[in-house]
């Protein structure tokens, strides 16, 4: 697997981070996901990556996070000329159509409901990886 693939995932839920790591591991991928626990840290990380000329190929955002939530982070990232080209996937528990519509309107690549089973997590991981490879 290419070590050039990089994914930024912002989620305050440590268990979800762990489960998704397991899911990536299941398909043989390690060390490609950088975890942060809120939107502010996500944007800070992006700044740093920009300086190092090593921007991630995919951003995954949870919606409900402290300090800066997913929607705000999405809005700011899509306004920023340096980051607007990076696809952003919203990864949330919320089944709210209004939130979903809002995220798509703000330029999210897709809106994915967090899975209920491990096998679905593995599918998600595969989907994310594939998205990076095609970009």
């Amino acid at each position: 697997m290419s070590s050039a693939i990089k994914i930024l995932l912002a989620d305050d839920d440590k268990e979800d981070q762990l489960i998704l790591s397991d899911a990536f591991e299941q398909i043989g991928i390690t060390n490609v996901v950088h975890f942060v626990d809120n939107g502010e840290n996500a944007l800070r990380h992006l700044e740093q990556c920009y300086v190092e000329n090593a921007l991630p190929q995919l951003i995954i955002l949870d919606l409900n996070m402290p300090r800066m939530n997913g929607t705000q982070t999405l809005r700011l990232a899509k306004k920023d000329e340096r980051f607007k080209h990076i696809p952003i996937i919203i990864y949330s528990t919320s089944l709210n159509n209004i939130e979903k519509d809002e995220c798509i309107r703000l330029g999210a690549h897709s809106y994915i409901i967090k899975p209920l089973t491990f096998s679905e997590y593995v599918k998600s991981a595969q989907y994310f990886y594939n998205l990076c490879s095609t970009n």
Partner: protein
Amino acid sequence: MKEIAKVSLQNEMDLILSHRRSMKLAELAGLSLSAQTTFATAVSEVARDVIDNGINGYLVLGIYTATPQKSVAAYIYDSRTNLSLQAPALQNARKLVNRFQYTGTPEASCIEMYYHLPTVVRQLDQKITEWQEQFNYDAPISPYDEIKRKNEQLQELADRLKASENQYRVLTNALPLIIFTLNRKGSIVYANNWMHTYTGFTPDQINTANWKQVLHPEDYSSFYSLLGDIVTTQAGNLKLQCRIREAHSGSYIWHQVFVAPLQEVHRPDDYFIGYIVDIHAQKEFEQASRDNTELKATQQRLKENELELTQKIHQLNRSNNDLEQFAYIASHDLQEPVRKMIFYSDYFSKQYAHLTDNKGSIYLENMLQASHRMRNLINDLLSYSKIRKEVTSFEQVSLQKAAGIALQDLELTIKEKQAKVTVDVLPVIEGDFSQLTQVFQNIVSNALKYSKEQEPLQLHIYPETDNTGMVHLHFKDNGIGFDTRYLPKMFTLFQRLHGKDEYEGTGFGLAICKKIVDLHNGVIDAVSEPGKGADFIVSLPETQNKKQ
């Protein structure tokens, strides 16, 4: 002539008085003793003739102040018109004075005699006043003089009183108010003309009927009992507002009646005096101002009630809002742990199944199902609490499109159940698209759930319009149906007609539909019978009133 003294000429005593007064005036006026005697003699001569032969004679003494020749003057009046100037007494008198003059009118005669004042009297007018006082207040010359004076004063008073009474009578008759006096028994003795003019009845007629014909029937008893009171006690006042019938118009007009005992009784029959005055305008003004006050008070109360209501509505809205916020936040936060429960029990049953026995696996499976039920419940609660007025936005909604999306979401179940759903051409109405889609979804999924086992579901969705501006959407199926007496329960939260084991569900579906329809100012209803299918009818206005 400025009058100083007056003497009536009736008998010998009057003659003496006339002589003495003439002397006195002449003396005061500064005439010499002989002149005094001459003047007094002239007066006496004429006075004697008038006393002897005249009628209602009298003497007036005074000062003639016309320039150039000022004089003491004596005027002797006599009611006779055939007075003879040739009488010896008059001829004698004529020789004694400076000027002698006779004046006659059809009613009376008057002999005027003047005796010139010898010198100029300074400040004559002031002197005359002093002399008048002297004649009026000087000690009487004799007992006769005293009686005579008093008699004269009395007569004058009586005359004045009579004149004054006449004046008052004229005055009271001219007044537009009723003035009357009553005797001790309460009967009218005197009344001014206005009583008759206004009431159309004479005092006698009013006495006979005891006032009954002039007073309003409703006021009569209180008037009559008050009148009875003051007649019985012979004291106190009667003061009453009552309606008096006006003869001219036949209508009753508000009056103030006042009756009080006279302080001093002037005539033998008068005991009470009273008046009746028109206060209709005042009464109407009072009524109007009272009405106005009442109106103001009512308005004030209304305002207070309105304010209270507004506050209550505000409180209610706030608590409603709080509740919805709470439900939304609670269910949102509840979702996360439930999802984890599902995840871990699923993970455990897959990865570590070999570590448990059969019973353990069954329990794990039960736990998973319970977690799923809880997740559904939370989701429905979330959906329910999300339907709020603040997030409802009205636009032109194609019901056809909404139905299409709902059916697409349920496609899998429809195929599984081999159901046949037909949708007629549906209109465009004003509403919230996602909410209306949910109505379609919930009712169709209900129909799928409660279809007969042995017979595939046939659901027909069709509109019905009338001229009231409402669209009635029918969802007619051939399912298991229900007894319509449960209808009110079905639209309430958590109400289920069936046990959990019979049919899956949280009981939120129809409650959500009702909330959405309510927000659209519509009505949801159903017609059904157990075993004979159901027809859910959603009635929605074609347009929404923007003010709501």
